């Protein structure tokens, strides 16, 4: 101890012996090499074989390290650490294998700005990427998801308010319907709008019909998450507002909703994320379109998922490239949406 009257702040519980770090590094680098060797010389083969042997070696070395290494740990703890690590590895692998082809194939189209701003009106099958684009699908998705949000977020939040605040006699019924609706397959939502509104001639194939189908899917997600959020608001606040002579409506408006604001925004975002990638219901209601249509009440409308679908059916190399790019755009849009919602929510929480 060189400095008994230590006044430099440290975190002694975080100090790691360098020797231990070397041992750990050895485990992390050594076991995959061992596993690789093992798959080469033994009948254990392929990626699965590698993963299984790697896990086995890793557990073994973690156990040895826990028993004889520089830092003694309980065996159970060492095992658990390896298992949790392995689970996360598997999870990340799954996500990465989905993301990687989208990013690598989608980035091909990023140099062609026309893809973002032009429509596909004059584009034939398998034409080069420098012609036309998917702007009409981006606009269509924004319009339809936007309308669906305007419809289902207020209704969903009102349903949640009925269940948590009003607690009326119909509460079990509302809950049951919301739950039943969340189980509806998306094609059924499309079929419903198709048979109820399009076949009967009330609506034509249009963006609005598509938005209605999407809101059927969005409503239960919004209602359920909003209900969870409102349940988290402490009863103390309601009591305080009521004791100050607030009516129930003013209590909800001035105290409960502001306190739940960031959570409710999250519920709306989750609803958007739920439907932004839907294809099946849109094929039956908005139908799809090759040209830009900004009027949701007349003529069919395209959306990113249905654009991907039709491009893939065309099958040419350039068509596939367009489909990948559209997927990339959809994924990026949703990521941006989520991130911005997070930032908004965090900022509100801080204030």
């Amino acid at each position, binding site marked *: 101890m060189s400095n008994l009257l230590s006044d430099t702040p440290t975190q002694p519980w975080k100090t790691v012996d360098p020797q231990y770090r070397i041992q750990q590094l050895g485990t992390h680098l050594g076991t995959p090499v061992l596993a690789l060797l093992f798959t080469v010389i033994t009948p254990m083969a392929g990626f699965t074989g590698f993963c299984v042997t790697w896990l086995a070696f890793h557990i073994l070395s973690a156990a040895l390290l826990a028993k004889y290494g520089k830092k003694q740990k309980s065996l159970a703890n060492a095992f658990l650490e390896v298992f949790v690590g392995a689970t996360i590895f598997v999870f990340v692998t799954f996500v990465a294998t989905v993301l990687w082809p989208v990013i690598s194939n989608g980035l091909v189209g990023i140099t062609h700005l026309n893809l973002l701003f032009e429509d596909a009106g004059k584009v034939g099958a398998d034409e080069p990427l420098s012609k036309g684009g998917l702007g009409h699908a981006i606009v269509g998705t924004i319009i339809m998801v936007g309308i669906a949000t305007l419809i289902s977020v207020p209704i969903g939040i009102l349903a949640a308010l009925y269940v948590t605040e009003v607690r009326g006699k119909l509460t079990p019924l509302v809950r049951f319907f919301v739950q039943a609706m969340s189980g509806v397959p998306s094609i059924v939502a499309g079929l419903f709008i198709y048979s109820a509104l399009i076949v009967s001639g009330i609506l034509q194939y249009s963006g609005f019909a598509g938005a209605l189908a999407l809101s059927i899917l969005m409503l239960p997600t919004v209602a359920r998450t909003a209900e969870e959020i409102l349940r988290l608001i402490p009863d103390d606040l309601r009591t*305080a507002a*009521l004791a100050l*002579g607030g009516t129930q409506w003013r209590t909800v408006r001035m105290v409960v909703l502001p306190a739940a604001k960031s959570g409710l925004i999250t519920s709306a975002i989750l609803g958007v994320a739920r439907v932004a990638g839907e294809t099946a219901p849109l094929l039956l209601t908005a139908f799809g379109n090759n040209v830009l249509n900004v009027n949701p009440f007349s003529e069919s409308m395209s959306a990113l998922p249905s654009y991907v679908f039709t491009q893939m059916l065309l099958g040419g190399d350039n068509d596939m490239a367009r489909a990948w790019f559209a997927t990339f755009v959809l994924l990026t849009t949703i990521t941006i949406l989520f991130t911005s919602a997070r930032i908004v929510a965090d900022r509100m929480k801080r204030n």
Partner: protein
Amino acid sequence: MSSQDFEFVANSENAMETKDINVWFGDRQVLANVNLEFPTNTVTALIGPSGCGKSTFIRTLNRMHELIPGAKLAGHVMLDNEDIYAAHVDPVDVRLKVGMVFQKPNPFPSMSIGDNVLAGLKLAKRKVDDAEFILEDSLRKAGLWEEVKDRLKTSAGSLSGGQQQRLCIARSLVLKPQILLMDEPCSALDPGSTRRIEETIKELRETVTIVIVTHNMQQALRVSDYTAFFLSEDGRPGHVVENGLTHDIFHKPQDERTDDYVHGRFG
């Protein structure tokens, strides 16, 4: 007896009177025949062991009781010569006249300190021209003005527990209630904050009638003019064993159980 044929003439010197208050939760009766008077501009302390129904009783005085699912009630609470449980009375109006401070400080977390104090005006949709004066006046009465005057726009969550409780008191004073109900307002606070609140109570007594539930016998002795001792024995519903001047209850109680309780021999 329904409220229509009820002919109970309230004493005009009392801000509030209760007549045969009986309370049930579901089928279980928790209060039996509570008759109490709260003289204008006095402090009445409700004491008694846990579970004797003090808090339940105080919540019947501003109709907060009925918010609990399964709650039932019989009896009358007279305020301004009118039974607050009469069919035509809106509970919202009652709560405007009878303010309440809770055991746990409950400021609105999404509002600033200033907005918290004035929240009652907005909740009650009351328009005032001198909001700034009311804000300062209420905070002064609650003994909090000096501590928060420079940060009225910051979040109420940044205050300490004692400050939050005084903020809640200020909040309920904005509506100028005739009666202020306090349900163990100091039980979650340190001695310093408790003393501040007791001083506040003494100052408020000039203008407001106060009913306070407390587990702290010394506090009842320090702040109250009248005391009512509640007890619930052997699973029977809670009732008032003895009530009267605080001095009498503590120094010459008529009932042996009161004597035992105020001298800390049980409870």
